[in-house]
């Protein structure tokens, strides 16, 4: 018995159908991708502008952090399609990303480094 037959015997839709059903409403259009691209460009411009403005270091760092996280999220969730895909991909990616951040934060703190 193939996996496809097994799913049919349990009344589950074939993977391909389920996949397509989920997908058809959820693909961003070319227009949306370009819009996101413009937002990415605008955020980058803002980051650079902030670099030159005379503001306190803490404000600068916070603002830069927020903006780069925003860009990161946009690319990962929309361009890499993580928002619309199987949750397993999100969990896998977060495992590596958050794991790396946690581990190296500990390394840096333990080494009493000046992180910023």
């Amino acid at each position, binding site marked *: 018995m*193939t*996996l*496809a037959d097994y799913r049919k015997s349990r009344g589950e839709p*074939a*993977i*391909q159908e*389920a*996949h397509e059903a989920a997908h058809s409403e959820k*693909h*961003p*259009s*070319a227009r949306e*991708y*370009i819009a*996101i*691209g413009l937002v*990415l*460009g605008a955020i*980058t*411009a803002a*980051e*650079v502008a902030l*670099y030159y403005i005379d503001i306190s270091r803490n404000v*600068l*760092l916070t603002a*830069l*952090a927020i*903006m*780069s996280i925003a*860009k*990161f999220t946009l*690319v*990962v969730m*929309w*361009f*890499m*399609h993580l928002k619309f895909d*199987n949750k*397993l*991909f999100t969990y*896998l*990616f977060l*495992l*590596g*990303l958050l*794991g*790396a*951040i946690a*581990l*190296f934060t500990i*390394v*840096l703190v333990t*080494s009493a*480094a*000046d*992180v*910023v």
Partner: protein
Amino acid sequence: MAHASTAHLETSTGIDNRKLLMWFFLSSDCLFFGSFIAAYLLYRDRSLVGPYPEDLFDIPFTSVSAFVLLMSSVSMVLALAAIQRGNVRGMQIWLFTTAMLGALFIAGQVYEFTEFHHEGLSLSTNLFGTTFFVLTGFHGAHVTIGVLILLSLFVYSLRGGIQQKDSLNVELAGLYWHFVDIVWIVIFTLIYLVQP
């Protein structure tokens, strides 16, 4: 195992093997870049001799090059959108554009590296030279491999090798490409913009 084109229908999770592999790989690559970034951050401001970052960084130049890489992500996703709709021509145009933007980014990196080198920064000069060149060098190597992959796909598609049903190949290349872009987002912010 059934014929490869329908393989993803037969998997226990419903996900294509190759797509799952790519996400595992990208997750793993987070650790790779995380390690080099940590080394950079550990040694930030600890170089005993110059040149130092503030002597060398040309923020306007690097911002343009960061922008180029970001736009290459846009063209990449447009290439994928095209082939998913069966538009082979559109995919080819956007694939080629992405590769060219990537090559432009690399050209920018090469220019930046040679400039810094002329100013006296090498791998062995100080901690900054070591950590900067190795981190951005490995990132650049990733981009270069990406450009090779994109150009290979492009050439292959010229021979009719990529049709709508093969869009996964472009999607996989896209995932790799976007990842390399987000690594640069992190590097650009942490290394260039955040300075003492």
